[in-house]
């Protein structure tokens, strides 16, 4: 039974602060104000059982459900393991129990293990070869033309660098959709009573001029679902740069990649430098070399993420070649569910680089009826075309 130590209250505070430090290095952001809150709560609530202590700490230190498992594991390890005696200066428990050495197996445990025993890792990843970007301003107009039409897959190293630079310099304008918020408007429309009355009050009750409002347009949010299967080809990398550029434009963009599994990459791509961001994704995503399971990934997206990311104003960009083996009926129903949950579904398919492309594969035929636009995405030109499409208001309706 745990008793709040009245005789040495400072030790409890130190232990809780240590615990917060452990949580921070394991990836849960805990601010010092939350630690203060936790200490205050422990003083006021008191605690006379371990579950209560756990509940008090989790209420104060947690702020999202995804961290709960990690928190629970950290709690188990921290408030029990005598191996941490060097870090825990006071025992909260009356007895010290000998315990076998921890063997972290799961991925979270490894992070926790690193957080609890911070040692330099012997298998540090090799630093990437320094690709210094030479800004060659000597590209002539015709060379630029060639660059725009060059297929990502078959670019030379120089063209690749220039293409990445061009991508980061593209101007992204997203289609503004009216929202329910209002802003001031010079033109007559809906009356802004508050501003009108304020003006009247200032002028002693004379109605000088009316003030107006209109719905404020905000750029439509977007979700990018990118298929990154196959080997680490240039093509997939360019997609990640593309997703990064989108994410740093004005609108709200959520990005996901999928191969055999679906991974959310929105936060990983937040870094300003595109190369850093892409390398973060490369480290986090593990299934580069596997095949694709489009149906499973779309299913996971629909089950777990659709209700959080999609709304009636969202545009979804699905980037995939559509070559799915096996049962295509499930694929069709997942695409239908996806299409119905968003405003428009744009399918970008690199196979359209071939001019004589015919949608014959069963997977492609299953997916095609549910998309609003079917576009190529193999060179800078096609990306520019896509940008123009994203910035314009809705064209004619669904394809079929």
């Amino acid at each position, binding site marked *: 039974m745990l008793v709040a130590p009245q005789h040495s209250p400072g030790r409890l505070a130190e232990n809780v602060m240590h615990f917060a430090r452990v949580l921070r290095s394991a990836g849960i952001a805990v*601010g010092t*104000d*939350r630690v203060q*809150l936790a200490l*205050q*709560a422990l003083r*006021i*609530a008191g605690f006379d059982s371990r*579950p*209560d202590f756990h*509940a*008090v700490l*989790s*209420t*104060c230190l*947690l*702020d*999202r*459900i995804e961290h*709960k498992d990690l928190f629970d594991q950290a709690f188990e390890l921290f408030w029990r393991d005598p191996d941490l005696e060097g870090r825990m200066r006071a025992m909260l428990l009356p007895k010290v129990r000998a315990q076998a050495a921890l063997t972290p197996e799961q991925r979270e445990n490894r992070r926790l293990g690193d957080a609890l025993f911070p040692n330099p890792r012997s298998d540090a990843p090799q630093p990437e070869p320094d690709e210094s970007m030479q800004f060659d301003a000597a590209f002539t107009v015709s060379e630029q033309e060639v660059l725009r039409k060059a297929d990502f897959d078959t670019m030379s190293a120089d063209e690749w660098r220039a293409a990445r630079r061009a991508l980061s310099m593209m101007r992204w304008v997203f289609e503004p959709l009216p*929202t*329910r*918020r*209002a802003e001031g408007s010079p033109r007559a429309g809906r009356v802004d*009573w*508050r501003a*009108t*009355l*304020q003006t*009247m*009050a*200032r*002028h*002693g*009750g004379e109605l000088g001029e009316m003030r107006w409002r209109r719905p404020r347009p905000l750029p439509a949010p977007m979700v990018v679902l990118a298929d990154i299967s196959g080997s680490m080809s240039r093509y997939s990398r360019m997609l990640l740069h593309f997703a990064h550029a989108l994410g740093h434009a004005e609108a709200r963009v959520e990005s996901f990649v999928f191969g055999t599994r679906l991974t959310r990459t929105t936060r990983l791509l937040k870094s300003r430098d595109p190369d850093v961001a892409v390398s973060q994704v490369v480290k986090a995503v593990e299934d580069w070399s596997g095949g694709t399971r489009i149906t499973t990934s779309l299913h996971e997206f*629909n*089950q777990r993420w659709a*209700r*959080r990311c999609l709304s009636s104003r969202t545009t979804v960009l699905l980037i995939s070649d559509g070559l799915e083996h096996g049962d295509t009926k499930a694929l069709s129903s997942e695409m239908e*569910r996806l299409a119905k949950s968003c405003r428009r579904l744009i399918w970008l398919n690199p196979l359209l680089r071939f001019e004589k492309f015919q949608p014959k594969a069963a997977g492609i035929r299953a997916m095609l009826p549910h998309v609003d636009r079917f576009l190529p995405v193999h060179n800078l030109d096609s990306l520019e075309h896509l940008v123009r499409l994203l910035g314009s208001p809705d064209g004619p309706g669904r394809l079929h």
Partner: protein
Amino acid sequence: MPTPDLPASIDELQQRLLALDYVADRQLATAVFLALKLQRPLFLEGEPGTGKTEIARTLSQMLGRELIRLQCYEGLDLAGAAYEWNYGRQMLEIRLAEGTHADRDTLAGQLFSSKFLIQRALLQAIDPARQVPPVLLIDELDRADEPFEAFLLEVLSEFQITIPEFGTVKAVTPPIVVLTSNRTREIHDAVKRRCLYHWVGFPDAARELQVLQRRVPGVAQQLAQQIVGFVQRLRQVELYKQPGIAETIEWARALMQLDALVLDPAVIQDTLGVLLKYQDDIARMQGGEAARLLEEVRNAARVPV
């Protein structure tokens, strides 16, 4: 009559909630207790239908405080949430002032006084004229947008609202604030930092049975156990939207209306729409799936506990 005191311990809080038919698990009771004692807002996140709104209602009943409810929606703004000026009466006042030839400065002062101020939920909750601070429920915060969250920060931090024409209104005693969210959108960290956080999950079988027996008095014991067993297993199936406690209670009421004493496949088929709200989920559960779950429930009942 003096209002009831705040509970002195987590146990007492749980008992008092139970007396009002709210079955709270220990973690939720701890979070509520801390929110009351530390005078911090309580942020409850979870799937729809898990009793987040209900806890606020029960708290207000338990403590004898008024419940002020702010239902959030996209585009909720200052005028809908906090206050609005009564433009019609202000215009009338201007016309009347013209008649008496009042001078400009007094007019401006009179126009923006408290008698022309319409108080909405947030301002009502922090009105210093109140004797007893109310329970403020900000429901479904994830449906409001980010500018509203930014505005809410001032209210939640200082329990005050600044009205440019009028002044600052500050609460004498902070109200008890409960925010709920269905997690359709991430709430900004700054709001969460102000609050104590708790995720309200689906209940386990024992607690769900207790809730059912309290909320649907008169339900037969065997039916209640079968209902709970079925719904608990249903939540393991991969559905688009899992049924919450609210759906369980509604289903029990529906079955009682149909005079069902035990579950059978036919009555389950007829009443699936009470539990499941998506056609894909209903289609999945029709036929074999529901019968299989029912069989498991029956087998579990036969094994002595």
